[in-house]
């Protein structure tokens, strides 16, 4: 669930009750989405695909060209100036009023040849595309559905066919078969289906693993139904792009074969036109008009298909779209500081941090927006807080509430479409948002380091962990590689991992070890602030405990401040000095952790705390978020007691909206 979706609609309650379970629907199990919001896990429905295609400029241009050629091919008998096969003695004439595109060496009209040629070329391409895709879909689906031996066998055949060099195979096949357009079609299908089958098989495999297919299997649907009604509709976009790819292949290869004289040279097609042009030595006598039109037509049709294909890719994977050139994550022009009373709240909670030290981090009115073409969603809304020297500040809230957005904004790691549109981030008095690139680079990791949510994904899989730690030293400090390596070894020992593991790759370590490596890396330069974005979410409970106690040890030793982000309220209350609860991009409550535990004021805070059962003590009925707590228009924090700030709210029951 991304920030975009969650702030707008489905926060709090599993909104799709009764529908197929979507991943990440339960806030307590889901991991916090880190920006930018990626494409949803589910394939886009077909209707959406077509509609989006209509709006895509590449697609419209592509379809336009194809329609034009389709019309030309259909209307060739009406449009063409005479019979293309008529041989006259007016050979090799340059384009003129009489022959708009000139004549061939045999005196045939090139325009007529080109128009009539469209018929054969397009028909063959279309036919090959349909047939090869059909074979590919069937083989791919069968392999994915039946699995085991069937899959092994079909995959093997597919891969062998893919590997055999296409054109030489085409040539040999065509040479043995009786010449003719039928032969060309058959040969192209034989060589063209494997690519489609391979792509579709792997896609079908991934869809087959999804829950709704399992559900259909359980309800006793037959293989045909499941393959064609459950799996196939979810592959629409890939089937389409495969089809387009095969048509391109078909048209191109047909032209190639015919150019080599392996087709039926008495048929008029773009390929045979080129064959004759070449055979008649059109180039040598400078008759460029004889070969230009047909080649251009092939290229235009292939280009149109490629554009369409590209548009399908873009629609299914919006990341591929070319963005407007803009520096991401930096304040947009005109994005002034939002005026609000929250500024007062800054001094309030900061003053009450109980440490009395100068703040390490001062965030004021931080506003982050996720901007897309259609709408803008606020990911963090006028968020203000400070963290004192050595202090542990907790940030709690459900998935998608903006916790990670805040964390990324502090290090200016946000990417398109997220933009910091207001507020300030100050580190020891320095304005982080105003830093030029060089300064920002040296600020990162040296002053503020971050432990990301998933250790599995935050380590580069193809570099040894030693090299990844050494990178930190060699970038930030003038040290030799040997020295950097020695210190990397020390760091590993600090988190109780043997030095020898420096040579290990991430996949050779357990999840807990990887997270400890990341933590070691984070403290490498002794930063004054460590951001921990759900550092233990992906780990099991025992490992979680180990990691947390290790962090506590390191903190005692190195004395860094911590911004601790989690949705685990009990863990947070245990570790934090002060904490804030976030909802829909806003703070709803901020106070010392003990105060929140003792008397949570905001109904959302209470709901969040009730979402986790206490580990000890009598059993209590859980009244968590599933009840459907929703809030809108959260106001600025107001101090209700010393150091305890709460957003204005009505009494709990008036605010609860039934799901």
């Amino acid at each position, binding site marked *: 669930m991304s920030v975009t979706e969650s702030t707008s609609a489905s926060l709090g309650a599993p909104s799709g009750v009764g529908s197929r379970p979507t991943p990440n629907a339960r806030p307590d199990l889901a991991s916090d989405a880190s920006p930018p919001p990626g494409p949803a896990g589910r394939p886009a429905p077909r209707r959406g695909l077509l509609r989006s295609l209509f709006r895509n400029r590449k697609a419209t241009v592509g379809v336009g060209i194809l329609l034009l050629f389709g019309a030309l091919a259909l209307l060739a008998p009406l449009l063409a100036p005479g019979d293309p096969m008529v041989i006259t003695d007016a050979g090799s004439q340059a384009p003129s009023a009489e022959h708009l595109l000139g004549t061939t060496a045999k005196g045939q009209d090139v325009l007529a040849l080109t128009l009539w040629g469209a018929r054969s070329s397009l028909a063959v391409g279309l036919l090959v595309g349909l047939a090869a895709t059909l074979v590919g879909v069937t083989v791919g689906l069968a392999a994915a559905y039946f699995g085991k031996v069937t899959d092994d066998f079909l995959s093997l055949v597919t891969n*062998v066919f893919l590997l*055999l*060099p296409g054109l030489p195979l085409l*040539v040999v*096949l065509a040479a043995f078969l009786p010449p003719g357009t039928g032969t060309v079609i058959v040969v192209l299908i034989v060589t063209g289906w494997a690519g489609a089958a391979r792509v579709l098989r792997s896609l079908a495999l991934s869809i087959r693993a999804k829950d709704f297919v399992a559900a259909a299997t359980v309800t006793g649907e037959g293989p045909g139904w499941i393959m064609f009604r459950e799996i196939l509709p979810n592959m629409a976009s890939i089937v389409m792009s495969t089809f387009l790819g095969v048509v391109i292949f078909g048209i191109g290869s047909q032209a190639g074969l015919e150019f080599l004289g392996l087709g039926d040279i008495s048929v008029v097609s773009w390929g045979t036109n080129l064959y004759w042009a070449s055979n008649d030595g059109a180039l040598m006598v400078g008759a460029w008009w004889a070969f230009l039109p047909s*080649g251009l037509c092939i*290229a235009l049709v292939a280009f149109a298909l490629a554009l369409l294909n590209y548009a399908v890719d873009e629609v299914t994977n919006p*990341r*591929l779209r070319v963005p407007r050139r803009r520096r991401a994550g930096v304040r947009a022009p005109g994005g002034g500081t939002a005026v609000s009373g929250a500024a007062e709240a800054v001094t309030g909670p900061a003053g009450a941090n109980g440490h009395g030290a100068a703040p390490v981090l001062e965030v004021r009115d931080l506003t982050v927006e996720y901007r897309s073409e259609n709408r803008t969603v606020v990911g963090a809304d006028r968020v203000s807080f400070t963290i004192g020297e050595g202090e542990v500040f907790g940030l709690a809230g459900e998935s998608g509430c903006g916790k990670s957005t805040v964390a990324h904004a502090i290090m200016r790691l946000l990417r398109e479409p997220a933009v910091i549109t207001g507020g300030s981030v100050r580190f020891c008095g320095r304005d982080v948002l105003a830093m030029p690139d060089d300064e920002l680079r040296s600020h990162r990791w040296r002053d503020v380091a971050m432990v990301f949510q998933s250790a599995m994904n935050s380590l580069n899989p193809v570099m040894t962990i030693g090299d990844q730690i050494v*990178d930190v030293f060699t970038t930030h400090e003038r040290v030799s590689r040997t020295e950097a390596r020695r210190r990397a070894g020390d760091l590993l020992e600090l988190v109780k991992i043997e030095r020898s593991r420096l040579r290990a790759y991430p996949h050779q370590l357990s999840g807990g070890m990887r997270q400890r490596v990341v933590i070691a890396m984070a403290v490498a330069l002794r930063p004054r602030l460590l951001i921990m974005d759900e550092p233990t979410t992906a780990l099991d409970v025992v490992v979680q405990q180990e990691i947390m106690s290790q962090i506590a040890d390191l903190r005692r030793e190195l004395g860094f401040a911590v911004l601790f982000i989690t949705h685990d309220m009990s863990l947070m209350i245990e570790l934090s000095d002060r904490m804030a609860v976030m909802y829909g991009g806003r703070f709803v409550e901020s106070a010392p952790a003990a105060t929140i535990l003792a008397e949570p004021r905001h109904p959302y805070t209470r709901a969040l705390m009730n979402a986790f059962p206490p580990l000890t003590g009598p059993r209590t009925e859980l009244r968590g978020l599933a009840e459907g707590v929703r809030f809108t228009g959260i106001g600025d924090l107001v101090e209700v007691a010393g150091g305890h700030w709460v957003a204005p709210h009505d009494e709990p029951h008036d605010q609860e909206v039934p799901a």
Partner: protein
Amino acid sequence: MHFVLRRLGFYLLAFWVSITLNFLLPRFMPGDPVSRMFARSQSRMTPEQILQLRQLFGVDDRPLWQQYLDYLGNVFTGEMGVSISRFPTPVVEVIAGQIGWTLLLGGTALLIAVVVGNLLGILAAWRRGGFLDSMLPPVLVFVGSFPYFWLAMGALYLFGVSFGWFPLRHAFSAGSSPAWTGEFVSDVALHLVLPAVTIVVVSIGGWMLAMRNTMIATNAEDYIVMAEAKGLRPGRIMFRYAARNAMLPAVTSFGMSLGFVVGGALLTEVVFAYPGVGYQLLAAVQGLDYPLMQGIFLTITAAVLIVNFLVDIVYVRLDPRVRVS
């Protein structure tokens, strides 16, 4: 090691399939092309040569399984008969004399296209919305839409016939004979330019777009954000963290698309009358030279399979996850 052996087994299987295909084609195809071939050229052959060709092409009374075993034996000992169109040179000798030119042309073009295309893709993905990202892909897709041979003809017409900058045909000037002299090498290089550039221009867009798309996916990975958070220099993140990972699928697709490149190179050879196996293949088709045709097909297939195997070995070096498991 296990991975490499499994791949080796797969390639051997693929090669066996192509040999079997070669064996079956003349025996089961309608129209009896082989007798046409014999009718045309029988008078020039010695009885031994006729017998050998009969056995290779199934004009033979022995049981099929025996023919098949003999055929396999012949292929592995390089006995592929004599060429009809270049009678009486054995097929193996004809191919050996020409494969070098194809390797030179295909290798040069492939190397340039792969290196430049991937670099462009890396840079395009790195600077989203920049010139490389927004302007170049459509242009390259358009250029890549032209048939290889057509673009080759265009280049030949424009730079060869009209401007006269480059030679029109063959791999070296008539009259000069192959030698390791500066003069001859530069002559070969000059003949190489047009065909190689054609192949590069048509194929580079595919490499670039594939790399760009993989890079875009890779750039969204957590380890890239982490590398940025670590304050690493952009160049280091781009190559050591992003491109290094995005390279892996590119390496795999390199093997897969090799067959296409070979096909394109064949057509280009035909246009430039470049004396490689592609040009020879067409000559064989036109001269009903089935032994040579089959020999060339098997050679090309074997070459593609061998390169794929080498790519797999490289892949194992590049991806530590495969290396261990």
